[in-house]
């Protein structure tokens, strides 16, 4: 597994010392509120409805068991015994007192972790495929490239005060599990005819108030030029992105206002300059990173499901089918751990669960694990023969719920319960849908359906790219919910279509039931919900939903 080199460790330590100084100057009244706010944001520290919120970076979603134990200890010692996984593959704590944050940063730095640029108008955590290095459809492991970009982006002196936040995602597989088309910059790894690594570059994607699908700005960019090209895009954005209105400040607005061709010309002009200044990719470094990220798995015999089933039973079978995926090495599978158990807030994980998962990753998955974009965890390299033992250990901790990629594997933003910007509760919808759809077999029959909930237009729940998106809106002090259908964030990303007028709070789950009934009645055999909406639009659903209400 990759560990930071000594220079990166020294840099992290200097960052902790710097932050300690900033907090103490603030507490001594030597730093004003506005300035401290900007400085703490760049260390992941928000002030939320109830208390400060600390967002810790999990670069490209990869964690060691040691790191996860530290996250568990932090939750126990300084928080209330749990953390919350985010859609940027990070983890958030909600109750850490400001005075203690320098000590938390130190505890993190001791295991190569930090909160650098997890908020603020700067380049945020680089995200990628949670199955990196394990999936069968992978062309190349994206993590070495993510780490290269992370080192370039962290403390980038030119881009620490951008017009708005900036998100980059990288995918290295034929199936895009990193949602690259809905990022400020999305990179898709390809190999050219000579077999060299090149990048397709997308720009200007993003959700929020005005969702946009990214546009392809470069085809087959040579790996040598990766950082100088990113630097050129960022420079154009830093200089010309709007700073007068925070809702129009993302790069997507600039790209749309200029048009892709003009934006591209400006980037090319800036690139002439950045190419002189930014060194080309150091292939020795990349080769070294590749070697460190690669795992050597001991040879294990392939064990078919039938054989495993004999020692377990039906519940195991449905978990195997729903929560595990084929691995590129025979004899292994990747295991998803659902953090969407009913009765526990979506994406939350307790200290005890973290400790258990850390132990299980040591025992069964090379001491390494992943945080996913949809707020679950992955043990990427589990031998098939070990699956029953792993499943048996996860079950009592409520970590073997077989709902991955089903309706209840929802993304739910903090909403009214925690977020000061919210219009409506998100967690109430999560509870309502769980109460209504409690038959796991029915969920399996429906197949892959994503439901995502945002408590306001800022769209932190990514509802635009869900099969069923739920957006909280407020009308005269009452919570209502706007539904969209047929969005997706994988290759060929699409923004969901609006179903119609907003739905009353107590009718959201019932409306989802109506929608699913239409789908069940009219779908072609094996047709996915997403394909169904693409074929039929929202009309068949509209008729049922609003006729029922009328």
């Amino acid at each position, binding site marked *: 597994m990759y560990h930071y080199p000594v220079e990166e460790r020294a*840099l992290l330590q*200097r960052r902790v010392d710097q932050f300690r100084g900033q907090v103490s100057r603030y507490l001594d009244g030597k730093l004003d509120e506005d*300035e401290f706010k900007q400085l703490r944001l760049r260390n992941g520290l928000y002030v939320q409805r109830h208390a400060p919120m600390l967002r810790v970076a999990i670069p490209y979603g990869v964690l060691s068991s040691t790191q996860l134990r530290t996250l568990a200890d932090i939750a126990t010692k300084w928080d209330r015994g749990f953390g919350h996984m985010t859609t940027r593959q990070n983890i958030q704590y909600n109750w850490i007192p400001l005075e203690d944050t320098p000590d938390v940063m130190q505890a993190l730095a001791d295991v190569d972790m930090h909160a650098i640029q997890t908020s603020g108008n700067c380049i945020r955590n680089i995200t990628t495929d949670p199955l990196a290095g394990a999936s069968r459809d992978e062309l190349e492991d994206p993590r070495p490239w993510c780490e290269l970009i992370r080192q370039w982006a962290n403390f980038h*002196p*030119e881009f620490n*005060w951008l017009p708005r936040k900036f998100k980059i995602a990288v995918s290295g597989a034929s199936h895009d599990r990193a949602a690259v088309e809905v990022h400020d910059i999305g990179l898709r790894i390809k190999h050219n005819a000579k077999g060299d690594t090149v990048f397709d570059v997308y720009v200007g994607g993003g959700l929020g108030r005005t969702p946009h699908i990214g546009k392809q700005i470069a085809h087959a960019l040579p790996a040598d030029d990766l950082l100088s090209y990113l630097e050129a895009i960022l420079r154009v954005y830093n*200089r010309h992105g709007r*700073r007068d209105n925070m809702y129009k400040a993302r790069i997507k607005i600039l790209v749309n206002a200029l048009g892709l061709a003009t934006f591209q010309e400006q980037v090319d002009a800036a690139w002439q*300059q950045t190419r*002189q200044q930014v060194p080309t990719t150091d292939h020795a470094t990349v080769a070294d990173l590749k070697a460190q990220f690669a795992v050597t798995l001991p040879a294990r015999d392939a064990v078919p499901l039938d054989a495993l089933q004999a020692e377990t039973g039906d519940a195991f079978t449905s978990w195997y089918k729903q929560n595990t995926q084929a691995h590129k090495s025979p004899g292994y599978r990747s295991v998803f751990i659902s953090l969407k158990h009913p009765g526990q807030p979506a994406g939350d994980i307790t200290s005890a669960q973290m400790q258990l998962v850390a132990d299980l990753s040591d025992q069964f998955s090379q001491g390494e694990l992943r945080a996913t974009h949809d707020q679950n965890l992955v043990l990427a390299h589990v031998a098939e023969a070990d699956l029953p033992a792993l499943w048996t250990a996860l079950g009592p901790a409520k970590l073997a719920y077989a709902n991955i990629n089903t309706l209840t594997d929802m993304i739910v933003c903090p909403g009214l319960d925690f977020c000061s910007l919210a219009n409506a509760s998100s967690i109430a919808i999560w509870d309502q849908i769980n109460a209504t759809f409690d038959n796991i077999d029915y969920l399996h029959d429906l197949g892959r359906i994503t439901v995502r909930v945002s408590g306001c237009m800022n769209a932190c729940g990514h509802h635009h790219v869900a099969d069923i998106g739920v957006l909280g809106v407020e009308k005269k002090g009452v919570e209502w919910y706007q539904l969209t259908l047929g969005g997706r964030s994988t290759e060929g990303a699409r923004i969901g279509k609006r179903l119609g007028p907003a739905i009353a709070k107590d009718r959201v789950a019932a409306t989802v039931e109506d929608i699913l009934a239409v789908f069940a009645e009219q779908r072609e055999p094996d047709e996915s919900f997403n394909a169904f909406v693409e074929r039929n639009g929202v009309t068949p659903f509209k008729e049922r939903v609003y006729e029922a209400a009328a």
Partner: protein
Amino acid sequence: MKLLRNGEIVDMPWRLQGADEPATAPIAVPQMQLVQSETPPPSNPAWVALVEPEDDPVELPASALERDAILIDFPSFTDGRGYSHARTLRHELGYRGELVAVGDVRRDQLEFMRLVGIDSYQCEADADVDDLNAALTELRPDA
């Protein structure tokens, strides 16, 4: 008005608009004025260019690049355009003179300003000079 320059706090050597520097100090002329007027300002009194966020330093008149210093304005510490201007001046225009950050320049911004090629920084008269110097190399002392 003061300036952190070569590790020391000195008087601001240029006259910024509306500032109280002596009338004999060279005047800082906004880039927009330099570009709009047909003839550059006469050399007496001496002048330097002041690049503002909306400007493109590539459009500076050649005479501005011949002066010993160019000032970069940071009207608010959260406006990061000046960092890109500094890089453009250094790398695209090859400017070797003194780059000076003026405006809302704060202690915790100094290091990144240094890293993009800025040499001197506006500061408060009562600033702690040792602390400012330390701030310049908090994260990347070797860069």
